[in-house]
């Protein structure tokens, strides 16, 4: 059953209620919201919860950067990357660092919907496209 506009709006409102002043998701607030939903049991509770979860995940991506690196030196760069990202962001960011041998060398950073990439695999892909 597709979600209604009302359910989508409710899920968005619930997300706003779950945020701290710094724009991060507060565990306590989420627990309180879940408790109140359990008690009131609005129509389409499952859909609302699914949408709420989706909103939470998407919001988490906006302050949780995921750094993939290839090569030996990649891990050392994580602190510098976090520092640079924090300089350009209005909120404090988290960082997850993952080794991705497919990149060959270089790194790929994802923050929200934005991807910054400077890796050998990306350059090879670009080169391949020029020959197609």
């Amino acid at each position, binding site marked *: 059953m597709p979600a209604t506009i009302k359910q*989508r709006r409710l899920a968005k409102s619930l997300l706003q209620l779950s945020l701290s002043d710094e724009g991060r998701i507060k565990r306590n607030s989420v627990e309180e919201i879940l408790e109140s939903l359990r008690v009131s049991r609005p129509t389409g509770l499952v859909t609302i919860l699914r949408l709420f979860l989706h909103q939470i995940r998407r919001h988490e991506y906006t302050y949780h950067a995921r750094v993939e690196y290839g090569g030996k030196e990649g891990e050392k760069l994580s602190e510098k990357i976090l520092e640079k990202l924090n300089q350009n962001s209005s909120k404090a960011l988290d960082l997850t660092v993952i080794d991705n041998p497919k990149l060959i060398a270089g790194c790929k950073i*994802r923050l*929200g*919907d*934005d*991807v*910054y*990439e*400077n890796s050998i695999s*990306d*350059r090879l892909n*670009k*080169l391949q*496209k*020029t*020959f*197609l």
Partner: protein
Amino acid sequence: MSSITDLIRKEIENLSTDATRTNVGTITTLADGVAKVEGLSKVMFNEMVEFPNNILGIALNLEEDSVGCVLLGDTSSLKEGDEVRTTGKLLSVPVGKALLGRVVDAVGRPIDGKGTIDSDQSFPVERIAPGIIPRKSVDQPLQTGIMAVDSMVPIGRGQRELIIGDRSTGKTTIAIDTIINQAKINKQGEKSGDPDFRPVYCIYVALGQKNSNVARTIKALEEKGAMEYVTIVSAPAADNPANQYLAPYSGCAMGEWFMENGMDALIVYDDLSKHAVAYRQISLILKRPSGREAYPGDVFYLHSRLLERSARLNENSGNGSLTALPIIETQMGDVSGYIPTNVISITDGQIFLETDLFNKGIKPAVSVGLSVSRVGSAAQIKAYKKVAGKVKLELAQFRELAAFSQFESDLDASTKARLDRGARIVEMFKQGAYNPVPVEVQTAVMWGMQNDFFDSIAVDDITRSVESLKEYLSTQGKEPCEEIYNSGKLEESTEQQLRSALEDWKRTFS
């Protein structure tokens, strides 16, 4: 071998080593050539997006939580969860003279097996139509080579003239004849070495057609030697709706290049009924609200923004033109349908083809009463205007009288004369497919009709006599036709020449 390595080395050297920033999303649903993508928060409307395996798409629906993208390739390798990237570019197609003689798909990729297209320029598919200031009134003729059209519904360069009619009434034939005639005129003009001669380049957009039909059209154009001035944009029935939706805009971008570079071009959209159907499919899958006949609310804008791009530009803007011949297929002759009325109101006139006339053997089956050209008469050459001025009225009167005369046993002399003249004009206008007639020959034949040269010939023999006269005028009686071609006027001296030529011809005709 060394040249290949040099090429690769050059590509590597030119390759940017900067970090790239892209906006990404993931496919949430995928059906019927349309993908719903979550993310892509910075995507622009109509931006090209890249799916895995180099499949391209266009962002058409920007919603609160998702983006609706139409896909422009084989979607079988895509799946839910795949990453989609923005490209920062609007969909563009190659443009220029390198496309002439080629058959391309909706995004300008060659599909004729003649190798890559050597074009260094590209134009975005969606562009804003020229405004009021750079435009100019239509004042140059675009000869179709079809007597019934050139005399009664003349077309000017920069005009939008709709060809409308039921299935199998000769709509495409009129368009192809026009293209063939442009090629003939172009060759003649280039041969003459006239520095002021302006060739007309043609773009034929085949939309939702059977591949066999497109192949037949290409063959006809090749046989008539017209292909060197033509680009064919093909989005056949088997192509996905997104390509069928895009093809007219791509063809238009190719035509605009000629217009903006001070040249003249003609574009045929064959046909826009199928274009509307393809757009309806996309819109329904994108869950846009549907209106009359399930078409989306912006189906008028779909065609108006396309046809408004055809224009005649003034001298300050390069003096180029883009003439459009959109085709619409009606159901049971109903011109009051949704899409037909939309396109009729957008265009500068229409050539309506009647099934009844076609079945009676009157080809081209142009309906005199329903066909009109709102601006084309301003572009007719003087000589032609002089001889064709009354034809439409005479033919319309004939059709009306013919309907009444069925119930009358006794007809007065003037009615009989009008019926007689009308029947002869109808026969004169009969013309075979892919056989356009030069304007000077048309003028001479019409002059002959106006000056009673055909009155003594039996009605059943008129078509044969007209063919014979055309033959005579292009061989023995060339002089008056050359005079008309060079001056564009019908002086008294030319009329004298014509009279003696036609008298000569009539003596030989049996």
